């Protein structure tokens, strides 16, 4: 009896903790989304008394926001493409070949996850200045590729892990050359993992502030940086509208992916069985 009571208490505690975590994750998001539709022209207490799209109007009327949004999207697309390609190649090398320093290299590829963004930003600032890279977009692209690589590599590794060497060998013995075997077998099977990594990379690049703060210039202000400086000057609900819009882009991306390759596979196990 005693043991069962302890068990029930334990289960209740776990459920309570889960509920609390969910509340903290989703609660602020709901508040931000609802406030972005507030019809009042000033920062007023929650909940909104009437709904309107006025803050979205303010957001899209602001030239610095629109420029920032364009810059952020361009940067995220470019960074995701490069990071996806490099990450897939790196994951392929790590799974298919045996070489000295393999463990070191795989640790190195994943290290940006563990190093504080501020350190990466500062280090990159010194590095790009030395190398004479003064174009803001190039500097940001460099940084975003580096910080998103762990996502694309890890996810590609997970995608490739489900592919047994014998499947590729089978394709070769049936007459496919290495390139044909890659595009017939390896790539289709690892595709979901690779795409999942790209989604993470895109989302990460889209809302990065810490690293970008060190590297942007006046011609390459990203949306998150524009939002931060706007908030410092005058805090209004156009920031909530911007945040909601960013979340909307991410959700839209996931829905499109769901229609094309299957959400479960991308976000779920990633490994093809």
């Amino acid at each position, binding site marked *: 009896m005693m043991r069962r009571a302890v068990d029930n208490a334990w289960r209740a505690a776990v459920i309570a903790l889960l509920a609390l975590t969910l509340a903290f994750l989703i609660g602020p998001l709901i508040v931000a989304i609802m406030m972005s539709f507030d019809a009042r022209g000033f920062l007023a207490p929650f909940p909104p008394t009437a709904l309107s799209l006025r803050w979205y109007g303010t957001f899209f009327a602001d030239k610095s926001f629109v420029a920032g949004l364009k810059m952020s999207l361009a940067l995220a697309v470019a960074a995701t493409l490069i990071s996806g390609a490099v990450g897939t190649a790196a994951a392929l090398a790590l799974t298919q070949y045996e070489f000295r320093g393999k463990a070191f290299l795989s640790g190195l590829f994943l290290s940006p996850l563990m190093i504080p963004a501020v350190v990466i930003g500062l280090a990159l600032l010194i590095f790009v200045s030395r190398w004479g890279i003064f174009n803001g977009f190039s500097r940001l692209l460099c940084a975003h590729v580096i910080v998103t690589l762990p996502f694309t590599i890890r996810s590609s590794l997970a995608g490739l892990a489900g592919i*047994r060497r014998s499947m590729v060998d*089978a394709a*070769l*013995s*049936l*007459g*496919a050359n290495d390139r044909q075997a890659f595009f*017939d077998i390896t790539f289709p099977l690892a595709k979901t993992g690779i795409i999942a990594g790209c989604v993470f990379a895109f989302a990460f690049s889209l809302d990065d502030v810490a690293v970008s703060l060190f590297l942007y210039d006046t011609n390459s202000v990203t949306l998150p940086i524009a939002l931060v400086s706007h908030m410092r000057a005058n805090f209004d609900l156009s920031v909530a509208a911007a945040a909601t819009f960013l979340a909307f882009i991410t959700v839209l991306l996931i829905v499109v992916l769901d229609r094309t390759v299957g959400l479960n596979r991308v976000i779920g196990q990633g490994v093809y*069985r």
Partner: protein
Amino acid sequence: MTTQVLELRNVSKRFGEHLALDDVSFSVAAGGIISLLGPSGCGKTTTLRTIAGFETPDSGQVLIAGQGMVRKRPYERNVGLLFQDYALFPHMTVAQNVAYGLRYRGVNRADAEKRTADMLGLVKLTDYGARRPSQLSGGEQQRVALARALAIDPKLVLLDEPLSALDAKLRQKLRTELKEILTRVGATTIIVTHDQEEAFGIAERVIVMNGGRIVQEGSPTDIYLKPNSRFVADFVGRSNLLEGCIQRNGPAPAAFTVAGGLRLTVPAQGKDRDAAVACIRPERIVVSEEGAPRPPCENVLPGIVTDCAPLAADVHLVVTLQSGQRMAVVEKNLGQPMRAVGARVVLCFNANDCVIVAD
């Protein structure tokens, strides 16, 4: 003009310090089914991978239909492979799997479809073309993999432990089927396995490997009845191995003295040997109760039953001899009363039931 489909000449391969293949030579005639049999790590899988083109030998030659293959890539060899895990492509249907090898052979669509249907018919999976491999049972997957390997009309078919992933009942059934299919298409086949049932049940010639070398080559019956070494006698089937020396030789049966004072009459040997092993198969020994009438034979050894296990069709006995050795004996289970542990019995066998191999 050679009729050998496959020929290996003095093939050696080293992985770091480990000599995986040590001067391996053998050949397979057209339509032949041979088996490479040996424990894990004996080099049989390396041999298979070398033939298929996934490993390059350090020295020696691999000839397929008389052509040197050492520098050829796997896709230039026309060798059909059945992998141990079947290696079916999970994102393709059964029909797409079977047709895959035809993609890169310039076969037109109609011919490819016909060939695929023929192959699925051959393995009795005609209606399974639209399914995914994950929807099939292990035995069905194996047959799809076989159909895929045969679809390219390979010069040589390599089977890697084809039945090891299946349960015992199914294994027996599929072994017969596999043999029928291979015989029907007349495929020259090499079966790599550690399981002697798989080797003996399908192959007409068996090559036993150990430590990267070929230790014996012959028909399944020869390998079983005339092992040429202690390793083969021990690895293939069950046997009682008694170490000792040959004391007298000549045309008459020789005397074999086992440590502990036991003397056996064994077949005539060419020369005296200090260290030899007498190998006696458990089913060649006749057991009778002490004092009961027994068949006349050259070796009569009294002992005590220490274990009696009725394993379905056979009864496995362990008899401890007066000289201390433990002998395994197999009797048919014909409904006779089981022998009691502790019962005094006499073991009888003839000189010809013993095989002498070097220690």
